[in-house]
């Protein structure tokens, strides 16, 4: 619905990335509420809070200190409350091996961090659309895999 608010979460250790991401989200027509986290541990702590409103979509950077994206992903997928969340890996790495590994560990979307802003905006919009479909249509969650 156009009235519903999408809860989006981003965990990235890079300040500039967070900033740019937030700017990109602003420019997208979909109504969103964005939460930002500096590293994996912060994110996980948040997610396991009681009565937390679970986000519709989690963006995870892979390279983070303390707890990196892969570890978070594994934890999310092994947590019964969180295992059905839509997770998008958001990383600079374009190594096939890494990409495959993220999918194996349960990531739904793999996003390569683009190098310019307009592409960033495009990508985020696309991801949000996909995410919307994830939640509202009877798409198969097990095969919900996309690479952007």
């Amino acid at each position, binding site marked *: *619905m*156009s009235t519903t608010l999408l809860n989006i979460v981003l965990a990235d250790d890079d300040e500039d990335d967070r900033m740019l991401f937030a700017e990109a989200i602003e420019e997208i*027509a*979909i109504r969103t509420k964005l939460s930002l986290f500096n590293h994996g541990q912060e994110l996980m702590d948040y997610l396991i809070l009681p009565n937390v409103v679970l986000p519709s979509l989690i963006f995870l950077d892979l390279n983070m200190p303390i707890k990196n994206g892969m570890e978070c992903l594994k934890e999310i997928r092994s947590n019964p409350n969180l295992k059905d969340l839509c997770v998008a890996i958001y990383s600079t790495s374009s190594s096939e091996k890494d990409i*495959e590994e993220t*999918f*194996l*560990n349960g990531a739904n979307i*793999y996003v390569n961090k683009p190098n310019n802003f307009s592409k960033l905006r495009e990508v985020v919009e696309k991801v*949000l*659309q*996909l995410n*919307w*479909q994830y939640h*509202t*249509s*009877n*798409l*198969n969650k*097990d*095969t919900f*895999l*996309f*690479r*952007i």
Partner: protein
Amino acid sequence: MEIKLFFKYDFDILCKTFIKEHLDALDVSYAINSVNEVVMKDNLQEEKYKTLSEALKKYGIEILTDKKSTLIERIKQAIDDMLNDDKNKHLKLSSYLSDTLNYSYTYLSTIFSENTYTSIENYTILRKVDLAKAFMCNTNLTLTEIAYRLNYSSVAHLSGQFKKTTGLTPSAFQNIMKKKKDYNLQ
């Protein structure tokens, strides 16, 4: 030693049975038209409506009140029907939808994109790709057969659209799904 159980769901039967049970419990006369639509023979009392709504909410089932969302659901349902029906899948989407739902296609597409952030076409493509994914994982059908089932003109067409939509080639996708299965078994 722990034993794992694997489930396959037929949502059609599941939802219909479920709704049936709940409606029976309320002692109302009804007719189930589809997974998304039930016709009440008499007017439903508010109390009963509340009970039903509460009960269903627990399972994540929402009774749509908004006329627009109902329509959208109906559009989605119609698209699903068309894709699954051997006879109808060759029809042009726009004409099928407008015929089935009795609205002009322009109206339908505007309502759809306004409320779902996607166009009907995109949604259809997404759905098709999703079905293709299901076929690839759950059956032994070849790509050719899948392409035929989903009314693609050729395997290349299917592969192209698949890649464009998911960012992965069908074989890469199958590869990952296979590895996932093995990985999960460990």
